[in-house]
């Protein structure tokens, strides 16, 4: 049994430009909210774990050092995590393993991105030496895999529009969410311009400023409190340029999911897990990851999207908070999934609470789909 639980979740308002705060102010906003939620003081914090995506996104090298004051890390052990877009997830897992190590009772962990400080599409589209300059941002990288998924399972093109509309409808219930698009529907998504075929403008995530923080503690502090107990957690990676890789259904993601289900004693994830926050930066990744995470058989993911299973009132709600499609401070996006899963089982997700949620999953992936991080949290020890 894992002796670690989330006792505090803190987020910032996500927006395209949070010019009212510095990077330090942004992370502190999330931390203050998390510590207030956990009702703990700085004396209780034994270590601070910080995660974010490439330093190139803000042009600030090793920000965990210059942010030491803002994150309350002065005189405390501090660790930086970086696993590209999955970093918010792997940072959560690494913070939790600090607690389960027995060396730390309570750990504060924070992740952020302030995309307005630079331009992530530019940073992801460099000309590599000795190669033609054809990198076209994250959407350009992932679009061929979405196309292959559509081809492989003969999925109708409106599946992507359904996901994009559904997640933004959920976002309207979440005051932290960046995109708030009144009356968003499938047709509005379908009418937006094509960016990277088969992906349209509203099928793609925004660029956001924001931070997310968690307070994770062992039973000494968590017992008797409102807490999200970690039932299973894991990270996996796989060789990016390895022959035989299937980026539509990566082995690393399958193995990571199987591992956390085994830890949590889950035999049938679709029936036993009440809801999940999974990393869907581009619409088609909802059905792709439903299959990769063993929620259904191969080729069945798009049918779960189409028949409303993943809607807020469906049998397996996915991305109740609006997901990465509605708020994408890249480094924090994974931790937001992990924190939102915790809020669901703490029954504190307000307008987008899934009634009686007992088990919820948080998921993140990153890089060229070679990094995975996941956890399952429950309302009981």
């Amino acid at each position, binding site marked *: 049994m894992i002796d670690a639980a989330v006792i505090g979740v803190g987020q910032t308002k996500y927006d395209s430009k949070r010019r009212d705060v510095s990077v330090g102010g942004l992370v502190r906003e999330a931390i203050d909210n998390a510590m207030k939620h956990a009702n703990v003081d700085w004396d209780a914090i034994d270590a601070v774990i910080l995660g974010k995506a490439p330093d190139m996104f803000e042009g600030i090298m090793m920000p965990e050092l210059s942010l030491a004051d803002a994150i309350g890390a002065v005189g405390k052990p501090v660790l930086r995590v970086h696993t590209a877009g999955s970093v918010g997830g792997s940072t959560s897992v690494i913070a939790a393993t600090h607690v389960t190590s027995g060396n730390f009772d309570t750990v504060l962990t924070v992740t952020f991105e302030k995309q307005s400080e630079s331009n992530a599409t530019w940073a992801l589209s460099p000309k590599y030496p000795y*190669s*033609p300059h054809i990198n076209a941002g994250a959407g350009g990288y992932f679009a061929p895999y979405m196309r*292959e998924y559509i081809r492989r399972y003969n999925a109708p093109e409106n599946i992507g529009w359904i996901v994009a509309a559904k997640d933004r409808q959920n976002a309207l219930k979440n005051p932290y969410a960046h995109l708030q698009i009144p009356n968003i529907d499938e047709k509005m998504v379908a009418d937006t311009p094509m960016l*990277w*075929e088969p992906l349209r403008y509203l099928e793609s995530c925004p660029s956001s400023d924001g931070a997310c923080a968690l307070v994770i503690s062992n039973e000494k502090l968590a017992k008797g409190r409102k807490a999200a107990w970690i039932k299973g957690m894991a990270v996996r990676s796989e060789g990016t340029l390895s*022959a035989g890789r299937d980026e539509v259904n990566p082995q690393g993601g399958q193995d990571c999911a199987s591992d956390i289900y085994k830890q949590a004693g889950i035999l049938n994830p679709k029936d036993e897990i009440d809801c999940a926050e999974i990393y869907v930066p581009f619409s088609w990744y909802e059905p792709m990851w439903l299959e990769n995470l063993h929620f259904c058989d191969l080729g069945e993911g798009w049918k779960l999207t189409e028949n409303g299973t993943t809607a807020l009132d469906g049998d397996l709600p996915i991305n109740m908070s609006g997901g990465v499609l509605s708020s994408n401070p890249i480094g924090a996006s994974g931790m937001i999934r992990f924190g939102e899963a915790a809020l669901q089982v703490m029954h504190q997700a307000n307008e987008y609470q899934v009634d009686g949620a007992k088990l919820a999953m948080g998921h993140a992936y990153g890089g060229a789909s070679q990094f995975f991080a996941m956890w399952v949290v429950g309302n009981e020890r």
Partner: protein
Amino acid sequence: MSEEKKDHFISPISLDYNYTAGAATTRFLKKVSEGKIVGQKCPKCTAVYVPPRGSCPRCGVATEEEVELVDKGSVESFTIVHIPIPGNPIVPPYVCAMIRLEGANISFLHLIQEIDLKDIRIGMRVEAVWKDKSEWDTTLENIKWFKPSGGDDIDPSEYRFKGPE
């Protein structure tokens, strides 16, 4: 002087670095400068890597044996980019494709041209269009783009390398 308050400004910064291609890529690029495409084969699982990185991530072993490949292959998948990418000189729309050379077990990204965009499909056979020999250098940019070469499409299930058995 303007009384208007500015809460931000854009400051260009730059970072110079030296890039070392490494032994495997250096060998590959020297051959490319002669108009040849030479991959490397894993001694354990037999996968052929192009461009080679000097090792097989499947098996964790060095790849030494060189395999000369033809400049023909097919489209494992692709996207059509419709938006300008900051810093990128190519004018959209353009096709960014995963090119799988015949005999190779991984794909690399390159452009496809000399085709109507609506005709591009997964599995379509393509061949390299090289720049004039006088312009060749140690770069894959020696290939301007790939173009359709005709012939039957590849069955996409063949793209998945399953090992030597």
